[in-house]
């Protein structure tokens, strides 16, 4: 018995030493940093749910069984670019992180973009909206999944202008994201023969919108475009209902609305709103299956938002690229090139591709929020109104100002 256990100990040691040897030779260790707003106004749409999505992507990739060692750490950028870049730097310098995912808040996302480029890491951004990430400020290390301001402007914005909403007034969050969304939507409005009659830039995280809404009302614009997100959007919508804006001749356009925002508003207030997302949990059997697994692990039982779904799908594609490379995940540019060379396909976003500027192309969907009487289950919120194919929704390469395209 004793001899047997000594023999098995020796055999075990030998095997594990061989495994270490193999790991060193091919270097199959990966460290993922999930950088998000963990406690502020975007925490519910990204935050802990994004970290969970990353964990599920690791588990579902099956790479651990093939000898890969994959770790995840998470951080809270608190919506401050300086904190975001400090965390990113520490992750690359001290913690040896290879890939950073999520990063909502365009201001933080653009700042982190520079750090990742400098450190030659991989950046799979799902949470930020600014189209600059793959346009003027594109980087060979960056893949922008899920959505961007160009897409929001060319789906929701375009649909509203075509439906007769030809004069616009903007309520814009006063930072990188709001500016980008207003700029992109303005371009769409003008291109379709409409005009912008005014706008207000409000500070991020504004609890009271009544003054701004009064200005929007006084402008007599047909559409009041909300170029903001999260808590700002929900407050604006709620207070607009209070001031009777929806009942007047003006229409409220939530250019960016997430599942968690609709939950926070309640269907009574949110019903009838039109907006665009690239993922909804109740689209098909695959999305439902994933969302069920996801919700079971979330503390409040919430299904994934499109940002969290994007973290999952982006990482799954990243792992496919790593597997194809066979190891050595530390050269960011090389990994991202591999990711771009492979078509994307997953259960959540379907088929697509990553353009040379880093923009992931997939379908976008126009939704309408259901009436309370139409909702059959706790998170049953959306009605599908239309589908826009990826090449229609996202920036055409010919229009892109990305320096990577000028090779």
């Amino acid at each position: 018995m004793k001899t047997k256990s000594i023999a098995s100990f020796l055999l075990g040691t030998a095997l594990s030493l061989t495994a270490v040897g193999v790991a060193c030779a091919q270097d199959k260790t990966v460290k993922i940093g999930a950088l998000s707003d963990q406690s502020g106004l975007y925490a519910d749409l990204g935050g802990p749910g994004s970290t969970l999505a990353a964990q599920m992507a690791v588990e579902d990739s099956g790479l651990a069984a093939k000898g890969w060692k994959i770790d995840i750490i998470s951080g809270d950028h608190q919506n401050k670019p300086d904190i975001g870049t400090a965390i990113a730097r520490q992750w690359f310098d001290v913690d040896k992180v290879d890939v950073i995912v999520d990063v909502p808040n365009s201001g933080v996302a653009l700042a982190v973009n520079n750090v990742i480029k400098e450190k030659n890491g991989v950046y799979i951004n799902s949470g930020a909206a600014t189209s600059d990430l793959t346009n003027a400020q594109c980087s060979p290390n960056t893949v922008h999944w899920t959505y961007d301001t160009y897409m929001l402007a060319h789906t929701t914005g375009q649909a509203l202008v075509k439906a007769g909403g030809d004069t616009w007034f903007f309520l814009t969050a006063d930072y990188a994201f709001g500016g980008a969304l207003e700029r992109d939507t303005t371009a769409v409005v003008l291109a379709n023969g409409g005009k912008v009659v005014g706008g207000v830039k409000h500070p991020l995280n504004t609890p009271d919108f009544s003054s701004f809404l009064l200005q929007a009302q006084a402008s007599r614009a047909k559409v009041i475009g909300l170029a903001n997100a999260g808590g700002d959007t929900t407050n604006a919508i709620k207070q607009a209902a209070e001031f009777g804006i929806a009942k007047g001749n003006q229409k409220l356009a939530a250019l960016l609305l997430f599942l968690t925002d609709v939950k926070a508003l309640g269907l009574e207030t949110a019903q009838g709103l039109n907006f665009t997302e690239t993922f909804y949990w109740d689209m098909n059997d695959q999305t439902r299956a994933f969302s069920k697994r996801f919700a079971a692990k979330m503390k409040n039982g919430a299904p994934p938002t499109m940002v969290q779904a994007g973290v999952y799908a982006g990482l799954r594609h990243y792992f496919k690229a790593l597997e194809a490379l066979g190891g050595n995940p530390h050269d960011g540019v090389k990994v991202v090139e591999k990711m771009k060379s492979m078509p994307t396909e997953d259960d959540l976003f379907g088929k697509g591709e990553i353009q040379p500027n880093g923009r992931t192309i997939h379908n976008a969907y126009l939704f309408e929020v259901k009436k309370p009487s139409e909702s059959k289950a706790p998170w049953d919120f959306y009605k599908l109104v239309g589908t826009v194919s990826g090449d229609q929704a996202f920036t055409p390469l010919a229009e892109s100002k990305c320096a990577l395209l000028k090779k």
Partner: protein
Amino acid sequence: MQALYAQLLVGLINGSFYALLSLGLAVIFGMLNIINFAHGALYMMGAFVAYFLLNNDYLSIGYWPALIIAPIVVGIFGMILERTMLQWLTGLDHLYGLLLTFGLALIIQGVFQNYFGSSGLPYAIPDQLKGGMNLGFMFLPVYRGWVVVFSLVVCLATWFLIEKTQLGAYLRAATENPTLVRAFGINVPRMITLTYGLGVGLAALAGVLSAPINQVRPLMGADLIIVVFAVVVIGGMGSIMGSIITGFALGVIEGLTKYFYPEASNTVVFVLMVLVLLVKPTGLTGRAA
């Protein structure tokens, strides 16, 4: 011009929240000498208690009873805080109270955020106060009108209680000379506990009033508290009438800034605070200690 009147009215509405909250702070500071940084968290708790009362399957208590129940529940919580923690700081520097209550605020907010997330919970406007009226220059939601009137009444009642009644006289005396007041057979510690409860109750009341307008969110108090502190400082720390008047006035000034230069609307209060402190360090109506 019409838009300007509208902004003035909207400013007055926000001012009523500032007034109610800064009034509670002024009462607590004036009577207990504690800079109550937990005020925002307690305001948020008021809104959450109203939410629970409404959405509990067994209770389903609506807005009107919540206006009374929530301040009492949160007030009792405040009194427990005072008895178990704050009373030990009597006689120490203000800084200790500030740090303790700041820590408490972070803990309370953290716990709520952990359980309820950050995006908030819906709370509908009560049926009786839905809709609005056309004033000619603006559409005034009935609920907002109610908020202004109700907070004015509560503010004046509190002022009357403290400045004009015998109970108020005892209170003021107890803060000036606790030993002497105790010698008259008055239970000073109990009075202080009740005063803290009153201040906290006022915060919770503002929370209930705010629930139908803003989302019921864990960070709703944190967003507001710094502005409210600026209001108290401008009005003069501890001055009851000062905080009421400054609360309403700053709401109006902020509203006007949102009209003329919206980007500065979050900072205008602090610019004013700096100016006031430079010219009159005790605040507009404050007395030198």
